[in-house]
């Protein structure tokens, strides 16, 4: 620009965001059809573009955008109310890890003292835990002792009761089968503290500390076709270098790590 003249970009045609995705909801020129059964004698309507000379598509865009904005305001306020109820219920404590804004469960009654309510609920939960664990244990214990009269049966009764106690299915659900396809010895370790289902988790390729070694990519959590079990499936090619490979088990939704997998591949 040696002559001092400045280039100037032309002013844009619009002065706001372009939210015309709703045009894709109908073929071009069919706006009237999509607006339903308004009769020709319908009076002027601020949303009726033809009545005030505005571009029909532009007005429809703004209207639909406004409708959606209203819906989001309603649901956001609902979620915030749920969060506030959870905080009230917890007596100012932060919501627990299992609480989300909407699922914060019960709203505390306005007349109830939050701490008292929380204390009562904790007490009930504790009582239920105690009941669910102890009743089957005690029942089986009595049954075993009265049936045989032998103290030695106590251990067996305890074991059976533990396996039948409510909540045992939680432990069964956490069981994960491991399938390894490898022509060489491979020690697979899965560290997954919380119960998990295959669909919710994904596994990043397992990597060795040495950067020149290729990652083990064929590692996945899958659902068994016949029994619905969660299976950790590991396939190792015949030529893969030996060593220790590790990777994260990641929650698909939140992206947060849920555990680790490691494979020690022998020669």
């Amino acid at each position, binding site marked *: 620009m040696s002559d001092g003249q400045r280039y100037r970009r032309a002013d844009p045609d619009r002065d706001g965001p372009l939210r015309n995705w709703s045009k894709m909801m109908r073929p071009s020129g069919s706006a009237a059809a999509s607006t339903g059964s308004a009769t020709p004698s319908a009076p002027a309507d601020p949303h009726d573009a033809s009545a005030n000379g505005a571009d029909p598509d532009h007005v429809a865009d703004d209207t639909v955008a406004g409708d959606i904005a209203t819906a989001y305001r309603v649901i956001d306020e609902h979620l915030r109310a749920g969060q506030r109820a959870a905080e009230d219920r917890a007596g100012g404590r932060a919501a627990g890890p299992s609480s989300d804004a909407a699922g914060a469960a019960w709203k505390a009654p306005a007349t109830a003292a939050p701490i008292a309510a929380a204390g009562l609920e904790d007490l009930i939960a504790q009582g239920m835990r105690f009941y669910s664990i102890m009743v089957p244990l005690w029942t089986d214990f009595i049954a075993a002792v009265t049936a045989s009269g032998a103290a030695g049966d106590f251990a067996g009764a305890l074991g059976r009761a533990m396996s039948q106690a409510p909540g045992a299915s939680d432990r069964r659900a956490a069981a994960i089968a491991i399938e390894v396809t490898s022509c060489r010895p491979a020690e697979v370790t899965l560290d997954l503290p919380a119960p*998990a289902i295959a669909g919710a988790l994904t596994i990043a390729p397992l990597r060795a500390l040495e950067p020149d070694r290729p990652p083990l990519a064929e590692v996945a959590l899958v659902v068994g076709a016949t029994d619905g079990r969660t299976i950790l499936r590991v396939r190792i090619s015949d030529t893969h270098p030996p060593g220790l490979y590790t990777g994260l088990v990641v929650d698909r939704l939140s992206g947060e790590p849920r555990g680790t997998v490691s494979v020690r591949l022998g020669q």
Partner: protein
Amino acid sequence: MVPGSPIVAAPPPAAATAPQIAAPHVTSPHVTSPLVPAMLREYGAMTRATLDRYLAAGEPRRYLYDLAADYPARGGKMMRPSLCIAAARAFGASAADAVGTAAAIEMLHNALLVHDDIEDGSEARRGRPTLHAIHGVALALNAGDALALMSLRPLVDNRDRLGDRTALRILEEAGRMAVECAEGQALELGWRDANVTALGPANYLEMVLKKTCWLATIFPLRAGALIATRAPISHDAFVRFGFLLGATFQIQDDLLNLVADERYGKERDGDLWEGKRTLMLIRLLGQAPPADRERLTAILRVPREARGPGDVAWMRAQIDRHGCIGYARRYAHGLAGAALHEFGRAFGPLPDSRDKRFIRELVTWVVERT
């Protein structure tokens, strides 16, 4: 909706407080989905088989159990239980894990229908006279109570399959859902009782969120995800998706009350007879000139029995005159687009599956159904 035109995933407007996440603008591949009816049949049959076990006839059959089993036996779309099973399966659980909860949802839904029909003074349900029209209010009310209480049984029985912790969390969610339903129904009944006319779309959406969405979509989705994951993950994404899907469903349901043919199974123009604050009526209240609005308010003030066919015909004509049906359709399409966007956030990371496709195509199905 124009036949053949796809609903497009619509991100929330910039003004919305929802997190702004870039969502793919993917059009719905099947405007008329064969998958949705097929899966509703499949999961519906599965749910009915479980339902039958819980509704096994005892005594007194004539005064209670036959009545409790009446609405479930009349059929229904089975959208709610199917959504629960599909959500659980999309996350990797088996259908057997979710079918008890699905049956509980359907039982509670039918219980609330019995009560709603009494509260609304409705005459027809699923193509037949309402339960209270056949047996009287007292017996129908009691059968509805029984059905609602019996819906707790499958949720308690979840302990055997899902364990204490997950079963208790589902019960907590069910408790929250029941409270929301009652609050939503109270809003709707209260507006009619007090003849509240100063309402806008936000009031309507709040009422629908509570009355319809929690039972129809939010709870089935959250429970399904909970059954599968059992992990403490945030389920707020399902609330947003469920709300938008459920509100679309309700607006379409209200539209069908005005424009559907005899397959609809409910009383034609029943909502106008009852003075229900639908989106169309709220729109009419906002659009009508003062004289018409005054006449409309006077019609709404009187009880249903005092309303005549001429009053209902006039309201119906005004709804047409002011384009309220087109307005509601457009509203439903906007919400459906937003629902597709939220679907991407709630289910996008999951691997492709028949169940995931079913849930997605349900968005289009709810605005297409007749």
